[in-house]
């Protein structure tokens, strides 16, 4: 078993193509996760007991079952009831849906961490609900949300190889297809690992910097 640079050079173009799909899936999935997550957070904080209860438990159900199974569900079950999604679309929806349960907690915590005095102040100023949110609550709750949301973006990036199970040819699958047809596993698998390290280690470092930055800002404001 020796490392062959020829094989490495051979597989690289396929992997670059795969990386593009991986990045697409990550950002589109994150977009869905943030949007759905905010929606879910609002539902969870609803004053109506049944809505809060139902949204909490359906989010827990998604959170406590594996993403892989949810992807299979979207990929195999939906066509049976007449909904045809491309593998990539199913993957993006699955990724977004799964992680919306995580991001909803970030949104909820961010909004709930704004002191009640701020809500009361907005009320006493006779602000409309829109104004309360726009000028009082959101400006205070968004900055602390940024680091955890960035962290989930990195997590989603690392979860994209699961999409290979539903035939999406992303980074990992591109390497795997090459491996299976050439019986060369060492170089493609090592390169996939390297690609992930190259992207996720620096971005984890950036996320850490963001965390420090917004922490300082918070203590400064207090």
């Amino acid at each position, binding site marked *: *078993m020796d490392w062959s640079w020829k094989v490495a050079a051979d597989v690289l173009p396929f992997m670059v193509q795969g990386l593009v799909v991986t990045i697409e899936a990550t950002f589109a999935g994150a977009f869905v996760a943030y949007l759905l997550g905010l929606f879910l957070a609002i539902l969870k904080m609803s004053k109506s007991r049944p809505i809060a209860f139902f949204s909490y438990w359906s989010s827990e*159900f998604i*959170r*406590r*079952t*594996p*993403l*892989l*199974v*949810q992807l*299979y*569900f979207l990929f*195999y*079950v939906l066509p*049976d009831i007449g909904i045809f999604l491309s593998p990539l679309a199913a993957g993006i929806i699955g990724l977004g849906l799964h992680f919306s349960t995580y991001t909803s907690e970030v949104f909820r915590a961010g909004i709930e961490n704004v002191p009640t005095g701020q809500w009361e102040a907005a009320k006493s100023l006779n602000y409309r609900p829109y104004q309360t949110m726009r000028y009082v609550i959101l400006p205070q709750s968004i900055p602390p949300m940024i680091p955890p949301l960035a962290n989930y973006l990195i997590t989603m990036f*690392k*979860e*994209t*190889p*699961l999409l*290979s*199970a539903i035939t999406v040819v992303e980074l*990992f699958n591109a390497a*795997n297809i090459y*491996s299976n047809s050439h019986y060369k*596993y*060492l170089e493609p*698998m*090592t390169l*996939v*690992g390297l690609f*992930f*390290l190259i992207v*996720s*280690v620096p971005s*984890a470092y950036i996320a850490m910097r963001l965390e420090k930055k917004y922490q300082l800002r918070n203590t400064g404001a207090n």
Partner: protein
Amino acid sequence: MERVLEYSSLLIDGTLTTIELTFVSAILALIISFLVGLSRFSSLASVRIAAIIYLEFFRGTSAIVQMFFMFYVLPLMGLHFPPIVAGILACGLNLGSYGSEVVRAAVQSVPRGQHEAATALNYTKYQKFRYVLLPQAIPVMIPTFGNLLIELLKLTAVASLITISDLTFMAQIIRAQTALTLEPFVAIMIIYFTIASVLVAITDFIGRKLSKGRNTLAKKGV
């Protein structure tokens, strides 16, 4: 649903494999978490650096890539594992990296005065960790460890991709044999949800037991 019940023996076998995989990798991950997490406090720079490399490597690459690496690449280097061992190693090593950060953060969250008090009492490093820091840090770790345990359970589903016959693998077999899609996937999602909910209840129970009378840190959820 009746036709899925015909295959209930497969589902029971799959459930047992999933539980076994979760349990054994959880123990492995727990040992690694403490080993690597505490290594970060070593006075030897080489030990600290080794711990950081381990952490960044396993946290930075995707779990599915690690699993395929163990399954396809390590045998080329002369290391042959049965699939279940490769699955346990990949799950344990992956979650261990996240766990080590929990251990490190929890020990660091013990107030500075406690570290200093141990030094003032002339405690050895072992005594300091055994009698002062860990008893206060462990209750802080429990809720996060609980979350990681759920992540671990969900990660075991990925092991189905390296031919381990866990729940997800069995659902795929049932799908292939009966052409049913909705029933097998719904059935295993309910099983996963049930296992996860039991794990949540257990960690909540342990968390309550451990934080009894030590409410200073745990209640604040530092």
